[in-house]
């Protein structure tokens, strides 16, 4: 068999196995629930009958293996079970809670990725080409700083900036400054677009309105992701530019452009794709915090709320979606790396 196909199939198999194990781990979450959980959920006043009914409902009375397969089987049909928030006569399925929010999160993540990936790759390549120059130093210092910031700090800073647009000129701080400085600062602040600081959207929100509302969360995530991705791209490119065949290309009199395009790039796909996948996976996590800051109805905020109310079926479903995305991204990166490896493409 073609080694590329073989390796790709191997990776796919490995990905499936991983997903399987991860689903078991997430499922075991319910099995690990402490005994007094039902009581904690239903409150101190719960009668033994209601506790028993609740336990039956979440299925603790059946053997775990059976429950696992029922759970997986239902999930494959898009049935993620019922939320603990359901009450008698008012069943809320996990699927109906998650679906619109999943769309919102994907919207935010894709928008960020569309801005961040080209930006980071471009900056990373530039920094690598002009390494140790002023541009590189500047970008290095700035990105080292941004990756050290918690996402919520960046998020609130941006929100604060937008709000200061209106509040600055009237603040005590502005009045303590010389008049000309206060005016010019205000002028600069007024150049900041008046982004919404709360990203409330619903399924009726028109597309461009949606884009406008998620501008701040998207910028926040972009800042964080670009810093990581750019640094990793820079390192990968520098690493590759140090290889002997690049030296050889220089000694063959190739132009810098030809060196990058013909000699570096064909070998750079694997490291670059790995960097992109790693950061998109990171994006998935960053989404959680940013959604909470901007009160954006996405799956991350849902999961945090579910954790607080210990709504385990929802937590499980969210976790599984996050994990699957994560695994899928890494799998894609693996497969692209394999498919662009000349040693595998052209076996001996």
């Amino acid at each position, binding site marked *: 068999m073609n080694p590329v196909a073989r390796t790709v199939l191997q990776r796919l198999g490995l990905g499936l196995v991983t997903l399987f194990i*991860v689903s078991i781990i997430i499922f075991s979450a319910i099995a690990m629930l402490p005994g007094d959980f039902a009581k904690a959920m239903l409150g101190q006043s719960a009668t033994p009958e209601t506790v028993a009914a609740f336990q039956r409902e979440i299925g603790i009375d059946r053997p775990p293996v059976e429950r696992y397969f029922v759970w997986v089987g239902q999930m494959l049909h898009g049935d993620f079970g019922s939320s603990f928030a359901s009450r008698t006569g008012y069943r809320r399925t996990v699927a109906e809670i998650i679906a619109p929010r999943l769309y919102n999160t994907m919207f935010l993540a894709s928008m960020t990725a569309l801005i961040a990936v080209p930006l980071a790759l471009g900056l990373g390549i530039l920094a690598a080409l002009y390494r140790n120059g002023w541009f590189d130093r500047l970008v290095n210092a700035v990105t080292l700083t941004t990756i050290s910031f*918690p996402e919520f700090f960046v998020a609130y800073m941006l929100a604060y900036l937008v709000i200061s647009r209106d509040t600055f000129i009237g603040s005590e701080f502005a009045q303590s400054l010389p008049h000309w400085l206060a005016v010019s600062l205000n002028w600069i602040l007024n150049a900041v677009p008046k982004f919404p600081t709360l990203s409330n959207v619903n399924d009726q929100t028109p597309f461009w309105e949606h884009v406008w509302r998620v501008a701040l969360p998207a910028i926040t995530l972009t800042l964080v992701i670009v810093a990581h991705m750019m640094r990793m791209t820079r390192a990968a490119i520098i690493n590759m530019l140090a290889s002997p065949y690049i030296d050889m290309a220089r000694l063959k009199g190739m132009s810098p452009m030809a060196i990058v395009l013909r000699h570096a790039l064909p070998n750079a796909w694997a490291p670059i794709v790995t960097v992109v996948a790693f950061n998109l996976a990171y994006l998935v996590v960053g989404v959680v915090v940013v959604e*909470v800051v901007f009160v954006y109805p996405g799956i991350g905020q849902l999961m*945090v709320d*579910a954790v607080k109310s210990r709504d385990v079926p929802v937590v499980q479903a969210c976790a599984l979606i996050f994990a699957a995305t994560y695994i899928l991204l890494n799998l894609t990166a693996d497969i692209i790396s394999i498919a662009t490896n000349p040693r595998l493409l052209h076996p001996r």
Partner: protein
Amino acid sequence: MTSYEPIAQVHRLRRSRTTRAKTALKKAPFSAWFGILVILGYVIVAVFAHWIAPYGETQVFSEAFAPWSQQFKLGTDQLGRDMLTRLIYGARNTIGIAVATTLLSFAVGVSLGLLAALYRGWLDQILSRAVDVLMSIPSLIFALVLLSIFGSSITSLIIIIALLDSTRVFRLSRAVGLNVAVMEYVEVARLRGEGPKWIIAKEILPNVMPPLVAEFGLRFCFVFLTIAALSFLGVGIQPPTADWGSMVRENATLITYGDVTPLLPAGAIALLTVSVNFVVDWFLHATSGLRDEK
């Protein structure tokens, strides 16, 4: 290409480790100095929080969301507690928990990683596959799942984050351990008949210290940010313990009025991680020579 070194320069190289560290410090760039000073400042505040803070950690005053004044240098929070006091105690709690978590994560990760590197075989296989699976779930998400089950006490927070983070420490220490374990001086020791204790303590550990020390800094930042994020989300450190992450969440509404106070704890987190990153960046540079210029 090695350049010609006259004998006199070889003598110049012979210095004790402390003097070497001193000269390295002298040559440290501004960012590293800045980082070191800031970290020292945080440590002092954290250790002496009890003596520095003007009020008690949970002392409540009548006015909530009070503005900055003589009495409350940075105002009060949503329950009427002094912000400055909370910030100072926050240093102790937030940094303390992060340090404890990182230490636990390293104790687990490094010991298992080096054992796997030295013995290979089934031990390595089992540990590595387990780590692969654990790492295929984003750690913040995994932490959320586990916290939803075990609840958010400080102990469970430390254990959960440390275990999740130790996977990364395991990978790194296994990788650097493997690099050293295949060196011929380790083979010499094995041929001599040395036991695993000697080999790990004398042959491997001294040679993996620099990358591990640097990693400790980076892992600390990561752990610190994760705990801050969890606390910010309300599932980390629980009230009434003062902690920077939750302080941001609890007072976030003030930002809508153009008040900068809630940004202070967030800024405190950012400043510390920036400083640690600066120091680690310099440390990596200093211990590996000029990595970029080949």
